[in-house]
């Protein structure tokens, strides 16, 4: 990863000076962070452009957007997991450490698992298939903590307990676990090193609604314990359930950054794209946003959403800056007069008893306690 210099808006080479100093410093601070991929024939694909974002301890920010908008690239960049042809710019401070410029040794020894834990998209694929959960947990405990050898077993069990992974399943292999239990195993692994920052990349994709809610509530519990969580998702219902703030990403840029209650409730989103996304939900308008998201390699000049936007005017030929939480030339006013849509209760229908759902033999349930916000 090299800092690129030939940019129209050169990002400041040094990060903001106040980061990491003082008590009110955020846990994670992205400052005009960009990632682009170098392609054959001198072409570049910008995947993340000028993202500025902060995350406090005990806070959850949900990064939402359609697939292919650059969300996952952002998470990979923070952990130094980008492929060879990626170039980054800007800064990402985790405490006093700048992640984008950190070398691999630094990332491997001090960051991954220790200061930033990843909760992956498909936990079953993330776990090693030929080893039991206990063996994997023990290894991680041994590598990341100073636990003496004879206390490893107990420490691994305690680590499982922290993510509500049932102790009697520790000797199972990943393929013997249900989706929900595999998710907990992956979460347990991410929590072992006590990382203050958790990155969750689409932790609920393909899970059924009950399991989504349980996974999300468990993640929220970690946030309430003081972790900072950046959750990448396209599942708006999951985002609504967990997030303190919502960042909406479109074509690699953050187009809206809002308080979750205001975003999902009144006055609602201010960016036309964000409004469209919410209005596509079956419990709301169920109307799709017209058109398709643009290719990151062939972005329209100016506002990338303009070709799909009903409000687009000549002004949209210029890329709007993110001001007051929205990057749009025609944002809905902050206290919009749009009539609040009738909102259904979060749980439609009776919540099914968890144990009759899948083959999971009654793991510890914490149904309601965890979503106290």
């Amino acid at each position, binding site marked *: 990863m090299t800092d690129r210099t030939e940019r129209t808006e050169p990002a400041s080479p040094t990060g903001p000076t106040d980061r990491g100093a003082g008590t009110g410093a955020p846990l994670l601070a992205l400052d005009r962070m960009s990632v682009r991929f170098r392609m054959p024939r001198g072409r570049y694909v910008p995947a993340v452009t000028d993202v500025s974002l902060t995350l406090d301890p005990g806070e959850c920010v949900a990064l939402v*957007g*359609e*697939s*292919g908008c650059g969300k996952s690239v952002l998470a990979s960049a923070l952990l130094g997991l980008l492929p060879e042809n990626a170039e980054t710019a800007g800064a990402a401070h985790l405490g006093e450490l700048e992640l984008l410029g950190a070398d691999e040794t630094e990332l491997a020894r001090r960051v991954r698992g220790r200061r930033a834990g990843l909760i992956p998209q498909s936990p079953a694929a993330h776990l090693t298939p030929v080893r039991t959960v206990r063996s994997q947990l023990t290894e991680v405990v041994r590598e990341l903590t100073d636990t003496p050898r004879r206390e490893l077993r107990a420490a691994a069990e305690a680590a499982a307990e922290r993510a509500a992974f049932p102790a009697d399943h520790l000797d199972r292999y990943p393929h013997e676990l*249900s*989706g929900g239990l595999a998710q907990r195993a992956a979460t347990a692994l991410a929590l072992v090193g006590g990382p203050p920052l958790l990155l969750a990349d689409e932790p609920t*994709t*393909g*899970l*059924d*609604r*009950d*399991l989504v809610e349980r996974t999300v509530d468990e993640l929220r519990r970690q946030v309430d314990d003081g972790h900072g969580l950046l959750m990448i998702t*396209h599942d*708006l219902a999951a985002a609504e359930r967990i997030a303190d703030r919502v960042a909406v990403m479109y074509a690699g840029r953050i187009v809206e950054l809002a308080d979750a209650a205001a975003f999902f409730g009144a006055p609602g989103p201010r960016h036309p794209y964000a409004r*469209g*996304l*919410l209005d*596509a*939900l*079956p*419990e709301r308008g*169920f*109307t*799709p*946003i017209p*058109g*398709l*998201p643009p290719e990151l390699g062939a972005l329209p000049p100016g506002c990338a959403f303009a070709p799909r936007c009903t409000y687009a005017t000549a002004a949209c030929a210029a890329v709007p800056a993110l001001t007051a939480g929205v990057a749009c030339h025609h944002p809905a006013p902050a206290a919009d007069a749009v009539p609040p849509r009738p909102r*259904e209760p979060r749980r*439609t*229908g009776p919540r*099914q008893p968890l144990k*009759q*759902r*899948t*083959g999971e033999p009654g793991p510890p349930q914490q149904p309601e306690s965890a979503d106290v916000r």
Partner: protein
Amino acid sequence: MSAEAPPPLQLRAVTAGYDRRAPVVRDVSFTLAPGEAAGLLGPSGCGKSTLARVAALLHRPDAGEVLLDGERVRGWRHRAPRAQRTAFGVVFQQPRLAADPRLTLAALVAEPLRATGRRAEAPARTEELAALVGLTPDLLARRPHEVSDGQLQRACLARALALRPRILVCDEMTAMLDASTTAALVAAVEDYRRTSGAALLAVGHDRTLLERWCDRTVGWHELAPAVKSAPGG
């Protein structure tokens, strides 16, 4: 629901699975009325996908019978007569697993026409279908690895509609997709049903979605009260 015409699809006491000793679907009956959109709601791993496969003639049940327009189905998969097979359009949950990576999206959409010897209709029909599901000509020229999941699923839906099926089976069609693509695909299905009068069996786990989409939503437990949980799904 009209009484004179036989229902397009009827399942009677179907038992099915992958191991005769432990069927996933046990003694399930279900009727799809003409032009009806029925939602089948159940959690992961309950057997609803297996039932959808039986209904679409893709999985032979261990017991029970399937009636298509009142006529008993005798063969499944390639053993089903073409007229019965092509009565169905099926869309699966994971477009990546349901698309031949070597084909362009245009070839993918036209595949059913070629397979039934109607290659000549392909260009015109593909254009029509692309417009219906919102695929641009640029996307039609690409192969699956060059498009997103949502775009690929649009192509899979277009393929399912290529032969103008009378019954559509959508098995978790939108489970991997974002809200806007979900709404767009459901709108495309409904557009097709409005002009063709096709019936729909939509299988899923999202109650809000199915209740918004379908005329009638049936819970899995209502169909199979005694069924045990099973892996997969």
